[in-house]
């Protein structure tokens, strides 16, 4: 007869034996998450809150109009609070800066475009480059900025063209029209620069919720805790069906086996999590509850899926997919309404709600934990009976 307590102690000893290897993996994961924290805190979704975009402008330095335009943008326009303008002499230089990550995007201003703008005909488009790879958030942000600039310029052009047309219809000579159009242009530039006067910003405060910084601190801590469950994969390797059948024959059923293995696994994850989050990152989150949920999830995946590579693959896809949809990398508003709801009710979303709101989501966390452990038990029953 094997008792639950004996089995639990045996598993605890086994996991302690594996501890040095696991600690090495935890250190690597901690470093990687530290990297991602740095990336997110300087990423575009976060920059959106705290940092400026660096926008490169490529065009001839001898062009006075362009130099004046860049100076206006840098010193007088409202966009200076959002954009840092960096001037480049040629596209190669800007390409190198974009590849090195020194700028978010660059705009290539050609002579043809300047001529087309002077002639008030929009037949030449201006190209901007935001990425070497597939489109990302930066590209989308740049699309928005391009739309803003287009709206301002095109509406002003329409006004100038309409005025020119109206004056021509009224029989004004060309030498009388041009000065009036130039004067109107100056008025348009003035209104464009003063456009911020239309708006006043009212700040409600974040007393009833999280600030952006707190949001990312929680999401990244949770992401780290999720990855921690990955680090003890060696605990799930080289396990034999015959061993389970032997234990069952000796009176330790599937429930006892699963709990006897789950508890040391959970304690290990909690120990590593507390050390890294509590003492290294120094965040005072209560991670015990979220860790129980993630440990149960990891345990269920590693129990259900067979084969080392498939265990890793299944856990990788589920962890990354769930973290993504639950808004660990981007704000939740990035997703459609349906995905936001799904993300909130996924284990990763429930853990986030618990960290954010506390007791309200405790039942959901515990409910998920029980479900995952039951799934693991069902598969253990299946293995024993096979």
């Amino acid at each position, binding site marked *: 007869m094997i008792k639950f307590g004996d089995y639990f102690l045996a598993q605890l000893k086994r996991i302690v034996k594996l501890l040095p290897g696991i600690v090495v993996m935890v250190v690597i994961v901690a470093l990687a*998450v530290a990297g991602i924290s740095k*990336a*997110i805190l300087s990423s575009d979704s976060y920059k*959106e*809150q705290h*940092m400026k975009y660096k926008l490169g402008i490529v065009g001839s330095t001898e062009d006075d109009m362009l130099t004046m335009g860049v100076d206006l943008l840098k010193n007088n326009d*409202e966009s200076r609070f959002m954009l840092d303008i960096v001037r480049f002499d040629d596209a190669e230089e800007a390409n190198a800066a974009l590849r*090195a*990550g020194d700028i978010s995007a660059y*705009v*290539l201003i050609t002579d043809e475009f300047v001529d087309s703008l002077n002639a008030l005909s929009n037949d030449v*488009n*201006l190209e901007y*480059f935001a*990425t*070497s*790879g597939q489109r*990302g958030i930066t590209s*989308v*942000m740049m699309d*928005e900025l*391009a*739309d*803003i600039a287009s*709206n301002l310029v*095109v*509406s*002003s*052009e329409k*006004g100038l*063209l*309409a*005025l020119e047309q*109206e004056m021509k219809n009224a029989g004004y000579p060309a030498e009388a029209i041009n000065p009036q159009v130039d004067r109107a242009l100056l008025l348009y530039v003035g*209104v464009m620069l003063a456009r911020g*006067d*239309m708006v*006043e*910003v*009212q700040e*409600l*405060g974040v007393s009833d919720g999280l600030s952006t910084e707190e949001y990312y601190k929680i999401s990244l801590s949770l992401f780290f805790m999720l990855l921690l469950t*990955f680090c003890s*994969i*060696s605990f799930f390797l080289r396990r034999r069906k015959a061993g389970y059948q032997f234990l069952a024959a000796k009176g330790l059923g599937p429930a006892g086996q699963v709990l006897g293995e789950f508890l040391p696994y959970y304690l290990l994850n909690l120990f590593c999590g507390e050390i890294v989050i509590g003492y290294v990152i120094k965040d005072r989150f209560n991670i015990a509850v979220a860790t129980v949920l993630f440990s149960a999830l990891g345990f269920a995946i590693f129990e259900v899926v*067979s*084969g*080392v*590579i498939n265990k*890793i*693959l299944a856990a*990788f*896809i589920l962890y990354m997919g769930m973290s*993504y949809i639950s808004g660990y*990398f981007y704000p939740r*508003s*990035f*997703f*459609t309404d*349906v995905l936001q709801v799904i993300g909130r009710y996924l284990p990763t979303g429930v853990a986030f709600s618990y960290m954010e709101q506390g007791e309200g989501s405790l039942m959901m966390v515990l409910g998920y934990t029980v479900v995952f452990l039951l799934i693991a038990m069902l598969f253990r029953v299946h293995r024993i009976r096979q």
Partner: protein
Amino acid sequence: MRYLLLLKRLLRKKSYIVMLLLVPILFFVLKGVAQENGHIMAVGVYVAGEDDSSKMLRESLGESESSIQYVSYESEDELRKAVANKTIDEGWITPFDLDGLVEGMAVSSIPSEKIKVVVRENGLSHLLGKEILCSKVYPAVAKQLYLNYAAALGLNADDKNFDSFGLSNSLFEMGYLDQEEVSDTSLILMPLRGILAVWLLLCGIAASMYYIEDRNNKIFIWWKTRFTFLRDLGYYGVVFLMPTIITIAGLIYSGSFTTVLREIPALLLYEVAVILLAMLLRMVLGSIKNLGILTPDLIIVVTILSPVFIDLKEARQVQRFCPTFHYLSSIHDTYYLKTLFIYTVLLGCLVVLFLKLPVKVRQVFKAHLL
């Protein structure tokens, strides 16, 4: 013939089939829920008035096809609550007399009643929102300025003349460094290419595990050759056959596929790099257990160093050690196709060097490394 037999054997492996099926399942699930495009920001709008400018703003927001989601609210209180409880990122409240504001702006006076932008916390997002809002109201101001100016000259101007100029509204267009046309991938599906690339890396590790299993089962006694490197390359190539087909199908299905001339060379080069990396890891680590223990860390590090979800621009020099970074960046920039090629050649040299090292030296190396 031997490679065909290997393929048949692989297709009978349960673990191989599960590995092949997991990613398409992810594709279908994500594609299913990503019918609607994602949004970078949700903005609540309460347009209080019924004047011309208010109508124009309403119309402009209704027609908007941007990555900002506009949600209409019936009252100011409702909108403020939505901002406070984070249903929306920010709210815009226009005054009853938006025409008055527009007229004031057109004569360069500071309006007494402004449009309110309600935010939870101050940050750059409200600046972007503010800029978008200004650009939506600006056409009405531009029209009013024209009408005022024309009236001052004694001209009988009207709205229709202003609206009759059908100028293109998009002055700017996004380009890629390789001059290819931009394909509009859904925001939500953007990380799929990265996930596929990491999955291919996992396939490489799996191939190494199958290889070790076959070597332990003495399969290679029946497959002796002088060119071990080429035989091994062929072995891994067979394992990669199905994942390659799935990757290409996945890219086409998700709308991320660009052109055959760009995708196929980049994918094949990346696969060779991944195969060489997997071979190197197999030779260094030697056992399935060691590979299994290392793999989670490897894929976590690769996912973070490559622009799958986030581009870690600050660590560009470290990113260059990761084949996935070169592959993902090479899709629209031939520069990275060249760096991927150089990376693959260097890795190939390392593998050949390692193969040529006498067994004893390798054992000493392993003993010191592990």
